[in-house]
């Protein structure tokens, strides 16, 4: 399960042991983070992903030292820092609002951390110059934050944190304020910078696309708990809970009862010639209720019944066709429960595969059905 870039055989960069955070809100105790155990490897790009209010920012602020846990222990590099104040922790943070010092120039912002550590002037100049080159800010040294674009301010915030060579860099929705184009560009850039400096990144976001493209591992959080922890591929292909399946990308969820099991494949039947094949563990038996997740791009849509024997097959009526440029999305009403969504890549077909009202057949391989919560 460990898929991090574990270069250092010693301690993990960050470790949370039974960390808990309660808030008192209007006389009621709210559990922001519930008994969380988490270990983030050295050099890993780790994302905390979840909707607002899931506790991801609180978790990050406990690592940075801005919140004190109600219970549990925070380790940085194996050292217990639970009661250590933020200015004495060897981690740095990139704030959602960037939090640049408005009265200082870009260079002075970047130099601030090193000045606090009493690094000598020449060394500060060298390291600040180096990091500003890495984030492509050379020539901007004398600009005030208000004279810079959002993307440039973002880079200053990044450089200001990275120049201290922290044990870990914490990023709190750093791209939230940028427009889509710039955001995508910065995603690639962040990943490049992380590879270049080799520092552990902990990235807080509610944007699943962002988390999937950049992370080595993702923790999907809901209501103060980690629902699933794994690589982007694991989380996308094999969502552990209904919540994860719905939160990451689009998912088709099918409910059914196991009609027969042959080898490690269970068959859910929905009528004449309609079935869903699901790979299952030995524990699953006939009569068990299953919830199955199928990603929309895995499903083939055709006007004719598919011929392959080992496929899941459902039939239904197209209710909606939406053209998205790179793909066309079909919504199909079937007898298997809620309407299914199918993404068809527009790689070959210049025309829609079917129109609203058409009867169609949906098929996919067994390995694309994934049983949830088993």
């Amino acid at each position, binding site marked *: 399960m460990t898929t991090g870039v574990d270069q250092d055989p010693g301690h993990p960069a960050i470790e949370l042991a039974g960390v808990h955070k309660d808030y008192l809100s209007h006389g009621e105790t709210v559990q922001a983070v519930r008994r969380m155990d988490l270990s983030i490897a050295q050099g890993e790009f780790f994302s905390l992903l979840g909707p607002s209010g899931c506790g991801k920012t609180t978790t990050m602020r406990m690592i940075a030292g801005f919140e004190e846990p109600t219970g549990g222990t925070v380790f940085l590099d194996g050292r217990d820092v639970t009661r250590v104040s933020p200015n004495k922790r060897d981690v740095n943070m990139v704030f959602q609002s960037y939090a640049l010092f408005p009265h200082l120039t870009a260079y002075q912002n970047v130099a601030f951390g090193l000045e606090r550590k009493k690094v000598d002037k020449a060394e500060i100049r060298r390291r600040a110059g180096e990091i500003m080159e890495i984030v492509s800010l050379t020539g901007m040294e004398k600009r005030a934050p208000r*004279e810079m674009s959002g993307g440039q301010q973002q880079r200053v915030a990044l450089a200001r944190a990275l120049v201290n060579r922290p044990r870990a860099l914490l990023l709190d929705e750093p791209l939230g304020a940028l427009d889509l184009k710039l955001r995508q560009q910065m995603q690639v850039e962040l990943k490049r910078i992380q590879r270049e400096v080799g520092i552990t990144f902990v990235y807080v976001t509610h944007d699943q696309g962002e988390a999937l493209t950049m992370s080595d591992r993702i923790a999907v959080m809901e209501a103060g708990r980690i629902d699933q922890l794994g690589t982007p591929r694991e989380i996308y292909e094999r969502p552990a809970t209904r919540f994860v399946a719905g939160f990451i990308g689009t998912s088709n969820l099918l409910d059914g009862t196991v009609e027969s099991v042959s080898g490690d494949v269970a068959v859910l039947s929905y009528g004449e010639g309609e079935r869903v094949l699901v790979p299952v563990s030995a524990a699953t038996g006939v009569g068990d209720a299953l919830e199955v997740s199928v990603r929309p791009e895995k499903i083939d849509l055709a006007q004719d019944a598919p011929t392959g024997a080992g496929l899941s097959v459902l039939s239904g009526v197209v209710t909606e066709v939406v053209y998205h440029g790179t793909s066309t999305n079909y919504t199909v009403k079937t007898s298997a429960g809620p309407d299914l969504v199918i993404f068809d890549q527009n790689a070959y077909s210049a025309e829609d595969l079917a129109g609203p009202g058409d009867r169609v057949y949906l098929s996919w391989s067994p390995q694309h059905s994934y049983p949830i919560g088993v």
Partner: protein
Amino acid sequence: MTQVLEEEETAVVAAPRRSRLTGGRALHIYTWIVIGWLTLPVLVMILFGFNDTPGRYNQTWEGFTLKWYGQVFALDELTKALVISLLVAVATAVVAGALGTGIGYALGRYRFRGSGTVNLIMFATMSSPELVMGASLLTLFVSLGVGLGAVTITIAHIMFSISFVAVVVRARVLTLDRSVEEAAADLGANAWTTFWRITFPIIMPAVMSGMLLAFALSIDDFVVSNFTAGTTTTFPLWIWGATRVGLPPQVNVMGTLIFLGGVLIAVVTSIRSRPRRPAA
């Protein structure tokens, strides 16, 4: 930042259309009436500083002269009163500035036991009648056996200006992004360094406004000074005494200079704090 820019651009686009409306002309006239209303007394004061009046009466225009500017410090008593007023005002601005900034920062940044009470006391001080304040200060000083003079005036002035400084600073602190201070802590700054290197420079314009306000309140205060001055004479107290025998034009000249000083500081402050346009 971008939002501000957008608003500015919208304003530029909308401006010519609005002036074509009939309301535009009325607004124009109204604006000039208000400006006239506000500046006319000041203009009269400045004008009569150039009045070539023969005696101590300076109520009718006798012709233009610059001689009062040459003889501005010719009246020793008046000069002395002005110096006392300036010293008291500067001391008030500095002390009320320091104390008020502390209170304003605490009220803007933290919620603590008694913060509501402090707020209440501040607004009570600002709204309480000066006569009441002056009379009770006099009672206080006399019953404590404190000799009245420049010191008691200064103490009194600090007392009623602190609230103004605190209110101005508090308003600024409330709009201050908390994460800026967190960022400083995150980068290794302790509370002291964070305040002096980050917070204070950012709230500096508000502190300056508060101090200017304290200075202005102090230099022309009459009521409270009258109660707490004893035999000491401040600029406003001297003028009040002099009106019975006629006001010398030097008073207008000094008034003009104080006014110009205030305008100068206001202009410099507004230029320095004007946000520059971000680079495209």
